[in-house]
């Protein structure tokens, strides 16, 4: 389990000074009501035991995680027993866990470093992806910079790569979004491959070079970092963010129902336990808000492409209504050419159409928001496959998928370059 980032983000001031956690445990306490919650808070706030909350209590019933130093174990156990509070030990020795983690990561680091480059044909941890983004930016400083646009609910950075030949001028821009649904691993993997492709081909591929002479490209490979870490550590099929929902034991909202485009309309759920829960209000998810703020602040985006999996579809607005978008004919024509270019590599066949009738109605989606905010060239890719492996796409398909997708992306970007408005 990769707790490092999570751990780093949550440990508060009370234990900042300590470096080792031998024998320390994490208790998960089943707090059932406000009364129990205050009793527990009293305990934690009492100085002598040196406890701290890992998962802060709210006034509503939910499990609460508390870090208990080894010296205080006995006292805490007695207290919980005397108060009739149910609990379980989720981490039996924090130091052992951290040591294990360190070892694993060093081992992985060793593997990637020794082959001298990042293995694009494999799936990677969040840390590895962020390191590779940094590495690309340092290798091509005139072309690329790694920009922090915000942070996730669990306080992980949200990093974007900015590809620009503009030297300060704010050119018309393209936004490439990936990994908003954390279980769709081919999306993040395709995105980081694409980053490397752009820096490799700039100056060599005339089409890409001419695109970058006129426009900037912003690439967000992991739009949902908390979810991604969760798929690696706890549940491979997690989709949503990891935000807490007051009053519910269920975690997270669907970040692709959280945008301000017919928010909470047809095609999203108001149940926090649902996989398509839209969240309490539009942009409630900080991961979504970070992107919205950045794009709105920039004010010159012309294209927004969102990478998902699976189904092999290339779609354009709308999802939230069956009404035809004003630019539907043009978008359809571009999408068909892009799908054809994609298929030219390995014969991978994509269906094309507006979201609503190609699949089903949906509301609060990123591309609908982009389109309604003046970003005409708004597309959703549903990458490989069509259900054989689904989300669990074998790693040996990463590079073939990324390569064919690149042809589709380029077709769209070339059209944008030639049709700036």
């Amino acid at each position, binding site marked *: 389990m990769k707790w490092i980032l999570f751990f780093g983000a949550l440990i508060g001031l009370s234990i900042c000074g300590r470096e080792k956690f031998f024998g320390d445990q994490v208790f998960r306490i089943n707090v059932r009501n406000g009364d129990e919650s205050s009793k527990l808070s009293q305990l934690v706030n009492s100085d002598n035991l040196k406890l701290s909350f890992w998962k802060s209590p709210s006034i509503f019933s939910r499990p609460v995680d508390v870090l208990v130093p080894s010296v205080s174990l006995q006292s805490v156990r007695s207290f919980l027993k005397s108060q009739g509070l149910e609990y379980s030990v989720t981490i039996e020795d924090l130091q052992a866990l951290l040591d294990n983690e360190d070892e694993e990561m060093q081992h992985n680091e060793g593997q990637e470093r020794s082959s001298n480059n990042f293995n694009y044909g*494999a*799936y990677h941890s969040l840390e590895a992806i962020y390191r590779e983004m940094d590495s690309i930016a340092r290798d091509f400083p005139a072309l690329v910079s790694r920009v922090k646009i915000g942070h996730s609910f669990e306080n992980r950075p949200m990093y974007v790569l900015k590809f620009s030949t503009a030297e300060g001028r704010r050119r018309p821009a393209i936004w490439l979004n990936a990994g908003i*649904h954390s279980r*769709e691993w081919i999306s993040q993997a395709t995105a980081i491959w694409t980053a490397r492709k752009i820096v490799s081909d700039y100056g060599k591929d005339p089409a890409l070079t001419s695109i970058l002479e006129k426009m900037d490209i912003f690439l967000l490979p992991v739009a949902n970092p908390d979810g991604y870490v969760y*798929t*690696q550590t706890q549940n*491979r*099929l997690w*989709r949503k963010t990891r935000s807490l929902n007051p009053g519910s034991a*269920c975690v997270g909202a*669907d970040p*692709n*129902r959280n945008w301000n485009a017919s928010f909470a*309309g*047809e*095609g*999203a*759920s*108001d*149940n926090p*336990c*649902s*996989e*398509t829960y839209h969240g309490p209000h539009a942009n409630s998810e900080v991961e979504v808000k970070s992107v919205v703020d950045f794009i709105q602040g920039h004010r010159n985006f012309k294209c927004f492409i969102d990478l*998902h*999996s*699976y*189904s092999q*579809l290339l*779609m354009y607005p709308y*999802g939230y209504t*069956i009404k035809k978008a004003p630019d539907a004919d043009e978008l359809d024509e571009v999408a*068909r050419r892009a*799908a054809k270019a994609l298929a030219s590599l390995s014969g991978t*066949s994509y*269906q*094309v*159409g507006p*979201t*609503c*009738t*190609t*699949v*089903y*109605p*949906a509301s609060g*989606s990123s591309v609908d928001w982009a389109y309604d905010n003046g970003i005409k060239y708004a597309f*959703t890719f*549903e990458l490989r496959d*069509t*259900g*054989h*492996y*689904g*989300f*669990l*796409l*074998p*790693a040996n*398909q990463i590079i073939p998928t990324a390569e064919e997708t690149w042809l589709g992306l380029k077709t769209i970007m070339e059209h944008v370059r030639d049709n700036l408005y």
Partner: protein
Amino acid sequence: MPPAASTPPAPRPGVPRPAALLLALALSLAVPGLRAAGPGPGPGSPGVPGAPPPGLLRQAARAALHFLNFRAGSPSGLRVLAAVLRGRAAVDARRTCRVDLEFTAERYGPEVADGRLGRCSARVVFRHQKPRPAVNVTCTRFMETSRRRREDFLLYKRAKRLRAPLGATSIPDSHGWIDPSLRPIWDLALLGSSYVMWERTTQTLQYYMAQLSSVNQWKTNEDAIDFDYTVLLHEFSTQEIIPCRIHLVWYPGKPLKVKYHCQELHTAQEGSGTEEGSAVAPTQPNNF
């Protein structure tokens, strides 16, 4: 994942009312020239009213194939949808939706790249927002019967020799890897799941088998393979992951016996079923 509507059966709490797809269907019936993308001629001709939404035709095709796969009882002969060729849909006063369609199917399997397609025609009837569509389907063969029987028997022999990893498992693993020696387990799991997926499919809900999460029992000492497992089904359009416990008994050439129980994680609905492919009286089932 495609941003998609959740328009499931009425009892689910917290979900918008299932008007959207029917509205889409009704509107598309009134809007001429709605074409399906993809290879082959679209359903109906451009400019002719009555072309159903491409999503509905694919829905019907998949339901038909799940049903066909279950009935065929052949883990080597599983088929998946290649492309919809053409189709018509009609909705009656009771909102029963009848879909007539033609489509191509190909053999399921990662190593299969022979591109051979079978051609299928089917009538699929969805009762309004209810699962278990009535299916009438015929497909041309894409493999000679004798070869399919041979492959089933080979799979059977490999299965008999296989010592399955009992308990919680992840097949495929997080990186999409299935150990080749465990392939028979995966194919049989998909065969059993086909029954479940057919039974659960409605106009708006469809399924894929995402992962095998537990092997509860793998008995090969008697003639038939007796396999009790848990599978995670991915449900469109709700995007939910549904754990289903399935118990099947399979012998090559014999109809498949299967029973199952699916968990509904946050709604009141649970679903289970049992079926035999033949008229043989059911043996005493294991209790779970």
